[in-house]
C-alpha cells in the first residue's frame, strides 16, 4: 500500500487520543449519598463483564474511527486487479523532450516537435498528485515542477539550437529518479532517436524503467552544411545530411554578397574557389536550398586574411625550431624578416623566448626581460610532466622532461601549464617557454603538431590573436576585440550530426537506452506500467461512517 499524501499519516498519532482521554479522565468523581448501594453493587457485579466489553468495544471503535479518517486523508492506494485501477504508485518521472535542432523537421506537413510534444503531454497528463516530476529539454537541465507547470513548459518548447546527448541525458535522468524514495521510477524519452544520437549506453539501474518513443521507420531527406574551412583561394564546404538525399544547390556569401555557387550532396565536400580578399576578418555564410529542416540549411564562417609573419631565428633556436620554420617558409606560411624573433634574447618586435641551455645564463636572460619591460622571470627548475593547454589542442599531453618555473606571471597570461605551473606564457608581444624546444627538454619538437603549432605561434599567438572558435548555437558570428583590434571570433552553428535524420533501429535504441519502445498511440498507455492502483479513501470514509454509527449504537444501546 502507498499513499498520495503520506504526511497525513502523522495524524495517526491522534489514534491515541481515546486511550489518553480514558487515562486522563480518571479524575476523582463527585461523591453522593445513596441508600441502595447494595443494589448498585449487585447491578455492577452483574454488568461488569458487559461494561468491560462495552468500554473495550468503544475504545476499539473510536480508535478505529480515527485511524480510518486519518488513512482516508492520506489517500491510500492499493493494488487493483486487472485494469480497474485508475492510479499508479507514486512515481519519480523524468520526461526528456528532445527539442534539438532535428526536431524542427517537417514531416508530412507537420513539425516533428509537435508530435513529440503530444507524447510528452500525454505522459505528463497521466501523472498523479503523488508523483515527482522533472522535464529535461535540449539544454540538459532537469526542471522539477508540478504537472501543470511542466505541461506548460512542454507546450512552450521550440526547436533548440543545441544538440541533446540523448544517451547521457537518459543516464542522468535514471540516476536522478533512482535517488527518489518512491515505489515507481521511470524515464520517458520523447525523441526522434537519430542514429547519430545513440552513442554509448545509458546503463540505467534495473529498478528504473526507461520508456522511449519508438523511432520512425523512414528517414526524412535532408541536406545541411557541415564543416566550412577557408583555404588558400577557396572554401571547403562539407555537405552533411540524411544519406541518399539528392544534391542541392548552395550559395556562398561573403559579407552578404554572393560570391560563389555550387551543388553538393550529403557526404561530399565541395571546394568553392574564392579570390582572396584584402587582409582582415571576413564573415560569410553558406546557404543551401531550403528543405524540410531549416536549422542546418545555412552556416556562417569567418575568414582571417593576413600576410605571413616575417620571422628571424637566432643561432640558439636549435635544430628542430629552425627546421620547422624552414618548412613553413617553403610553404609560404612564414617569410624572412624581423616581425617575430625566436631565441634566448628578446628582439625589437614580437619575440618567442626559451630559457638558455646553460643555467648560468638564466640571470642574464631575466635581466634582458626586465630591460624589455616584461614582468615574467625564469625561476627555479620545475618537475617533469605533461602539458595541459585548453586553448592549444596540439600541445595537450605532450611530455616535458626539463623546465623552469616562472615568477611574476599573471594567470591571464598563461597559455599552457605543466603540473599546474605555467609553462607557456604571453606577456605583451613576448611569448616565453619554460623549456627549450629540444627533445632533451620536451617531446614537442618530435610531435606531429609541432609545425602547425609553430605556424600558429608566429602568425597568431605571438600577436595576441585567438583562433576562430566554433560553438553550438543559433547560426551567428561573434568577434573578439581588444581595443580597436579584432583578435578572434566564435562561429555559432548547429551540430552537423543533427543533419542526419536517419532514425536508429529499434534494437539499437533498446540496447543503447535499455528502453522499452512504444508507438505514439501506445505511449501514454505504456507510461506508468507499475501495478494498477485504486484509491480507497472513499471506502475508508464509508468505513469511518459505519464505525461512527457502530460507536453511536454501542454508546447508546448498551447503556
Amino acid at each position, binding site marked *: 500500500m502507498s499513499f498520495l499524501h503520506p504526511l497525513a499519516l502523522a495524524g495517526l498519532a491522534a489514534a491515541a487520543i481515546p486511550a489518553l482521554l480514558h487515562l486522563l479522565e480518571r479524575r476523582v468523581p463527585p461523591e453522593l449519598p*445513596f441508600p441502595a*448501594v447494595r443494589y448498585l453493587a449487585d447491578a455492577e457485579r452483574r454488568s461488569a463483564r458487559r461494561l468491560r466489553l462495552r468500554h473495550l468495544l468503544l475504545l476499539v471503535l473510536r480508535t478505529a474511527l480515527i485511524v480510518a479518517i486519518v488513512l482516508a486523508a492520506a489517500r491510500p492506494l492499493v493494488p487493483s486487479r486487472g485494469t480497474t485501477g485508475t492510479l499508479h504508485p507514486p512515481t519519480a518521472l523524468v520526461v526528456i523532450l528532445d527539442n534539438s535542432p532535428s526536431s524542427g523537421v517537417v514531416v508530412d506537413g507537420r513539425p516533428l516537435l509537435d508530435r513529440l510534444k503530444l507524447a510528452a503531454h500525454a505522459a505528463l497528463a497521466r501523472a498523479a498528485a503523488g508523483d515527482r516530476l522533472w522535464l529535461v529539454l535540449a539544454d540538459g537541465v532537469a526542471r522539477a515542477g508540478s504537472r501543470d507547470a511542466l505541461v506548460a513548459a512542454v507546450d512552450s518548447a521550440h526547436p533548440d539550437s543545441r544538440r541533446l546527448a540523448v544517451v547521457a541525458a537518459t543516464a542522468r535522468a535514471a540516476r536522478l529518479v533512482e535517488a527518489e524514495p518512491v515505489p515507481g521510477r521511470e524515464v520517458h524519452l520523447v525523441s526522434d532517436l537519430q542514429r547519430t544520437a545513440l552513442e554509448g549506453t545509458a546503463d540505467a539501474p534495473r529498478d528504473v524503467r526507461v520508456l522511449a518513443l519508438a523511432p520512425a521507420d523512414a528517414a526524412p531527406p535532408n541536406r545541411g552544411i557541415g564543416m566550412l574551412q577557408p583555404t588558400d583561394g577557396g572554401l571547403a564546404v562539407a555537405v552533411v545530411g540524411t544519406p541518399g538525399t539528392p544534391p542541392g544547390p548552395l550559395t556562398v556569401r561573403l559579407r552578404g554578397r554572393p560570391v560563389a555557387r555550387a551543388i553538393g550532396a550529403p557526404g561530399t565536400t565541395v571546394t568553392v574557389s574564392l579570390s582572396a580578399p584584402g587582409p582582415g576578418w571576413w564573415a560569410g555564410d553558406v546557404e543551401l536550398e531550403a528543405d524540410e529542416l531549416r536549422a542546418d540549411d545555412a552556416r556562417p564562417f569567418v575568414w582571417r586574411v593576413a600576410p605571413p609573419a616575417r620571422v628571424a631565428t637566432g643561432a640558439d633556436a636549435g635544430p628542430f625550431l629552425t627546421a620547422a620554420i624552414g618548412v613553413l617558409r617553403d610553404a609560404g606560411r612564414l617569410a624572412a624578416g624581423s616581425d617575430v624573433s625566436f631565441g634566448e634574447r628578446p628582439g625589437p618586435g614580437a619575440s618567442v623566448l626559451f630559457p638558455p641551455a646553460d643555467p648560468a645564463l638564466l640571470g642574464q636572460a631575466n635581466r634582458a626581460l626586465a630591460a624589455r619591460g616584461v614582468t615574467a622571470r625564469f625561476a627555479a627548475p620545475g618537475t617533469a610532466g605533461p602539458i595541459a593547454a585548453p586553448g592549444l589542442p596540439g600541445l595537450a599531453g605532450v611530455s616535458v622532461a626539463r623546465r623552469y618555473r616562472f615568477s611574476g606571471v599573471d594567470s591571464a597570461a598563461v597559455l599552457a601549464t605543466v603540473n599546474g605551473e605555467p609553462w607557456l606564457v604571453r606577456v605583451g608581444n613576448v611569448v616565453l617557454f619554460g623549456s627549450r624546444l629540444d627533445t632533451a627538454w620536451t617531446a614537442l619538437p618530435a610531435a606531429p603538431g609541432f609545425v602547425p603549432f609553430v605556424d600558429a605561434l608566429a602568425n597568431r599567438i605571438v600577436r595576441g590573436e585567438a583562433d576562430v572558435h566554433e560553438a553550438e548555437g543559433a547560426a551567428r558570428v561573434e568577434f573578439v576585440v581588444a581595443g580597436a583590434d579584432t583578435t578572434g571570433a566564435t562561429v555559432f552553428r548547429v551540430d552537423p550530426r543533427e543533419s542526419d535524420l536517419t532514425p536508429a533501429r529499434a534494437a539499437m535504441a533498446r540496447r543503447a537506452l535499455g528502453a522499452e519502445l512504444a508507438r505514439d498511440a501506445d505511449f501514454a498507455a505504456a507510461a506508468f506500467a507499475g501495478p494498477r492502483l485504486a484509491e480507497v479513501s472513499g471506502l475508508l470514509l464509508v468505513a469511518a461512517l459505519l464505525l461512527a454509527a457502530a460507536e453511536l449504537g454501542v454508546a447508546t444501546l448498551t*447503556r
Partner: protein
Amino acid sequence: MTVAVPTSQRFDLLDPAEVSRLGGIEIVAEGVVEGFLTGLHRSPFRGFSVEFTEHRPYQPGDEPRYLDWKILARADRLFVKQFEQETNLRAMLLVDASRSMAWHGAEGRLTKRAYADRLAAALALILLRQRDATGLVTFDEAVRQAIPARVKVGQWGRLVRGLLDTPDGRGTAAEAALRRLTSLLVRRGLVILISDLLFDRDLALTALRYLRHRGHQVIVYHVMDPAELDLGGPPEVRFRDLESPASVVVRPRELARAYGETVRREIAAWRATCRRHGIAYHHVTTDLPFGLALRLLT
C-alpha cells in the same frame, strides 16, 4: 390549629410532599384519614378482626364478597353478612428509622422516613378509631421506641410522639426489632412493617415467618424513593452507602438499565417470598398519595 384545605381537595389523594407542607404529622394524618374514610365508607380492616352478627337484605353498593351464598342457593334471595367489631384486636406498627430512610432523591420530596411516619400515623388513627389496640415499634440497629398496644384515650398522641422522638438511626437490623415485637404481641394481632427493606432479606423473613407462625397478620410496606427506581446523576459519581463505609463509582447512564433490572428483581423477590409465606406486601414510593397507599390494604 386548623388546616385550610379546599373542600374540593382530599388530603389522601394529594401529593405527599404538598400535604406535608400544610402542617405537622398529626394534622396530615387526620386529614388523610378523614379523606380516606370519606371515600371508603368503611373500615379497611373490617372483616378480619370482627365476628359475624346478623344478615340484612342486599342493597346496591354492598360488597359482593359479603353476600351469603348459602342463602342465595337455598332461597334465591340476596343477603349480606354483617359483623361485630372485636375490641381486643392488637395492632403493632413497625417503622424503620434507619439512616437509609432519612433520604430523599429530590429537593421538596419527603424522605422515606417522613413518608413512613405519616403513613404510620394515619394507620394508627384508623385502627384506634375502630377501637383496636395499637402500638408502635421504631428501630434501626436496635429497637428505639416500643409503645405497647393500647386503645385508651391519648394513645394516638403517644404513638405520634414516639415517631417524632425517634431520631434517624444508623444501620438497620429488622430482625432484632421483629424478635422484640414477639414479646410485645402475646395475643394474635396485626403487624405492619414500614421500611425500605435495605437489610438482609433472609434474616428479616425468618422473623416475619415466625410472626405468621404465631398467627399474626403481617403487612409489609416497602417504601422507596422514585430516585431509587431510576438511577440518575452526574456522568460519573461515587455513591456512598448511608449505613456502611461501602461506596461504588459508577456511570449512571451506563448502569441505569442494569440497576433498574436489579431493583425490579429485588421487589419481585420480596413480593414472591411474602406471598409464599402469607405476608401482604405492598410497594410504595414516596410520591404516592397516602390515600392510595392506605387503599392498598382494602
